[in-house]
């Protein structure tokens, strides 16, 4: 059994608008720069200012897959943080607080009170706004971690704007560190930098999706802001001139999806993203992408629904929705990244699949993917490939795509269902992309005869057979199924907590085999059935009420999964609750 790694779990809490997330991310950056691994979780209400915000950071000497339940140190930027979170602390856990907010006597006796005059130090260093930095210094002080990494981050952050602000912050952090070390010289967790550790990037899911799209050669991104997808728009817009991408904040999601189809008609790699609510507005044009055989990529990032739902929280309740979205039947692919490595990898692959299949590809994520940062091995750009399928961008339309009268047949019926896609601008490429059913040329009025409808419908649906050969296979983790006591099946971001749970179980001598359904549509029925048949007990873990993945298993595999664990309170699974469920089942 492997030894437990050294870990620090710290929660920072305060009022919204205090800059808690920014402070937390700077702390994470400092640890990652020092060779440690991190995973963070930001929880915030849908408010600009006011309400309780908190940021949870897990730091480890080993790779981490998710957040966990216990907390070692709690940074209280207000009294409410203590009341809401003290019960999460382990015995001997530290409460870093400002004596102006409450007294040491308010801290439960099983915990370690670490009073640090946050406000007073901040004022002395340049202003109350530096309170967060004082608190970060205090935390680094009690865990014995050098301040230099935080100093570097501060200098980087303020290098352009105001170097003197960086200096003030460094002074503030040092004073916080000194005060905390004096108050708590013997804290239970001590962390040190790891020399020579492999470089990690610190990205959230949306940045990973954005980088995947950029690497794939995206030329057009259109979107309407909606949590949790908005930061993809910011990311793409920030890089539009550097990389040559037209980024459009549209009047609504209807426009975004239609523009993306227009860009794809011109041959440009194009993407849009939204939450489920925004995708609802896109659905008609999403179907048009299917009918017109347009190569587009759509990110649907789930937050709890229905309707406006819980804007800033997470769920996995859009699986069935994206698989079935739009009237009629057409081929599509739905990929569900589980973490920030998957998000990059599946996004550039999504563009290839869209081009190879000439049909929409959905990347199904959620707030847990989008909002939270994870230390991730730097993406290997040499792995990225571009396959544009049967695309013709210049010269003349190839003879194989011409009809007997010499006209280009954009929707020519082929064995694999994919037709030559000669772009506008290619000589002889007059064509009619069409949302109506159509004939091989694209004429809507000629699409009405039954035999034409059947030929075009079957041609399109044949692309699902090709899709099955091209899509990423399921991923397996944990113990080999043959030796496992239980098999866990899941999709999307449940991957993190499930992998973490399997590691915890392994330390206790329990072997669990894990299967991540990476491509949720077309559904990998054979692989899932084989997996379920190879383990003595089965448990499905998914973040929704109705068991959407479980329903797919029943439908596609004609198999029942014995046990299931659901969560639909807007919060992601914790590994501990999965461990508890596994023990209950065994």
């Amino acid at each position, binding site marked *: 059994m492997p030894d437990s790694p050294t870990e620090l779990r710290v929660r920072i809490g305060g009022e919204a608008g205090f800059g808690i997330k920014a402070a937390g991310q700077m702390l994470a*950056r400092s640890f990652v*720069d020092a060779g440690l691994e991190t995973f963070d979780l930001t929880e915030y209400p849908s408010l600009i200012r006011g309400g309780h915000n908190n940021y949870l950071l897990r730091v480890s000497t080993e790779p981490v897959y998710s957040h966990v339940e216990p907390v070692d140190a709690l940074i209280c930027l207000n009294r409410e943080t203590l009341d809401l979170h003290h019960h999460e602390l382990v015995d001997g856990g530290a409460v870093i607080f400002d004596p102006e907010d409450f007294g040491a006597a308010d801290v439960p006796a099983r915990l370690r009170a670490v009073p640090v005059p946050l406000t007073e130090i901040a004022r002395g260093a340049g202003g109350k706004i530096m309170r967060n930095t004082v608190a970060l210094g205090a935390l680094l002080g009690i865990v014995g971690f050098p301040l230099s990494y935080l100093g570097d981050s501060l200098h980087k952050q303020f290098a352009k704007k105001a170097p003197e602000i960086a200096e003030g912050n460094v002074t503030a952090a040092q004073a916080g560190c000194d005060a905390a070390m004096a108050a708590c010289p013997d804290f239970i967790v001590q962390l040190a930098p790891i020399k020579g550790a492999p*470089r990690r*990037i*610190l990205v959230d899911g949306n*940045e990973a999706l954005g*980088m995947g799209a950029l*690497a*794939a*050669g*995206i*030329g*057009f991104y259109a979107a309407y802001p909606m949590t949790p997808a908005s930061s993809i728009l910011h990311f793409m817009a920030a890089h539009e*001139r*550097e*990389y*040559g*991408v*037209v980024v*459009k904040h*549209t009047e609504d999601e*209807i*426009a975004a999806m*239609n*523009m*993306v*189809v*227009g860009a*794809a*008609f*011109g*041959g*440009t*790699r194009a993407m849009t993203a939204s939450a489920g609510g925004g995708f609802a507005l896109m659905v*008609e044009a999403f179907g*048009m992408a299917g009918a*017109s055989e347009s190569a587009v990529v759509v990110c649907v990032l789930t937050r709890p629904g229905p309707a406006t739902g819980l804007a800033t929280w997470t769920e996995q309740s859009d699986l069935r929705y994206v698989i079935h979205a739009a009237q009629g039947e057409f081929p599509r692919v739905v990929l569900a990244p589980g973490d920030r490595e998957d998000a990059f990898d599946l996004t*550039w692959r999504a*563009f290839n699949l869209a081009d190879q299949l000439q049909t929409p590809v959905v990347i199904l994520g959620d707030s847990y993917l989008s909002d939270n940062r994870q230390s991730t091995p*730097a*993406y290997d*750009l040499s792995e*990225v*490939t*571009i396959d544009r399928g049967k695309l013709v961008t210049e010269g003349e339309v190839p003879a194989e795509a011409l009809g007997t*009268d010499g*006209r280009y047949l954009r929707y020519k019926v082929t064995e694999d269902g994919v037709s030559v896609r000669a772009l*506008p*601008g*290619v000589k002889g*490429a*007059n*064509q*009619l*992309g*069409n*949302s109506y059913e159509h004939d091989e040329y*694209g*004429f*809507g009025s000629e699409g009405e005869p039954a035999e034409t409808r059947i030929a075009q419908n079957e041609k399109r649906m044949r692309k699902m057979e090709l899709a099955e050969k091209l899509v990423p296979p399921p991923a397996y983790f944990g113990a080999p199924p043959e030796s496992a006591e239980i098999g866990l099946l899941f999709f999307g971001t449940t991957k993190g907590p499930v992998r973490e749970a399997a590691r915890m179980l392994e330390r206790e001598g329990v072997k669990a085999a894990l299967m991540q359904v990476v491509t949720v549509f077309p559904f990998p029925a054979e692989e899932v059935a084989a997996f379920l048949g190879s383990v003595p007990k089965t448990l499905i873990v998914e973040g929704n009420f109705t068991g959407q993945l479980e329903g797919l298993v029943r439908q596609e595999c004609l198999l029942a999964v014995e046990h299931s664990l659901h969560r639909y309170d807007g919060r992601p699974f914790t590994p501990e609750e999965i461990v508890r469920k596994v023990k209950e089942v065994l």
Partner: protein
Amino acid sequence: MPTAKELESILKPTWCPGCGNFGMFRALKEAIEELAIPAEELAMVWGIGCHGNGADFYNVQGFHGLHGRALPVATGIALTRPDLKVIVEMGDGDGYGIGGNHFIHSVRRNIDMTAIYHNNQIYGLTTGQASPTSDQFMRTPSTPGGVVEEPVNPVGVAVAQGATFVARAFAGDIPHLKEIYKRAILHEGFSVVDVYQPCVTWNKMNTFSWFRDRVYKIEELPDYDPTDRTKAFDLSMSTFHELTCAPDECKIPIGVFFEEPDSFTYQDGLPQLDRPMYKHAEKPRDISATLELYGA
């Protein structure tokens, strides 16, 4: 460069005999021929409606989109393919009703493309319901008691929203319509052409003869300055709104209401749009500079 004849597809138009769409079809084909636009440099987009059936009748690089959504599809083309001239055809229900939001925002973006509205003041394809431009009190199957609301004033909305080219035309005057099309296509910026196109089947009020009795040409107005936005707006308000008005009571101006020749187009604001954007996907993009910002 295609002739008007070569711009016709192998399919013959199926519009009702006498439909105003025939005049628009002929005027646009002739305008494109006279402007000598190469086939490879032209893209057309249609919405859904009787006008949209025209998608089958043009021999061009085209896309027949959804009801009300032609403009965003065309925008996606225009903002990624600077080598293409984009012409969009829409109907009144299509472009001013269900697609009204895109109309307003396309106008204010001033994207360099041409938007043509087939305005027959009725829903033809769905058999005769009131449209956003139907005259007030008009009786239709969906408004048996008469349309209650005021019609949309497309010219006024476009002018007020900052459009850089706004014209109205009449499908019964093909030479005049053709000249307006040519000016609209040549205009650098978003050009709006609202065309009264009588529906001979469903609209028994606003007929060809009804229009002939009322239209007059703006260019015949003494001292009219089409670069004066306020005057253009005032003129747009002179449009008839009375169903039963006598010809001498309601005169309908046709021609170019407003034109701003050297406007700042949306494309002017996109220095990165220096080539067809599909060219960015010829090989994987090197994003190592960005990865470095994240710690690589």
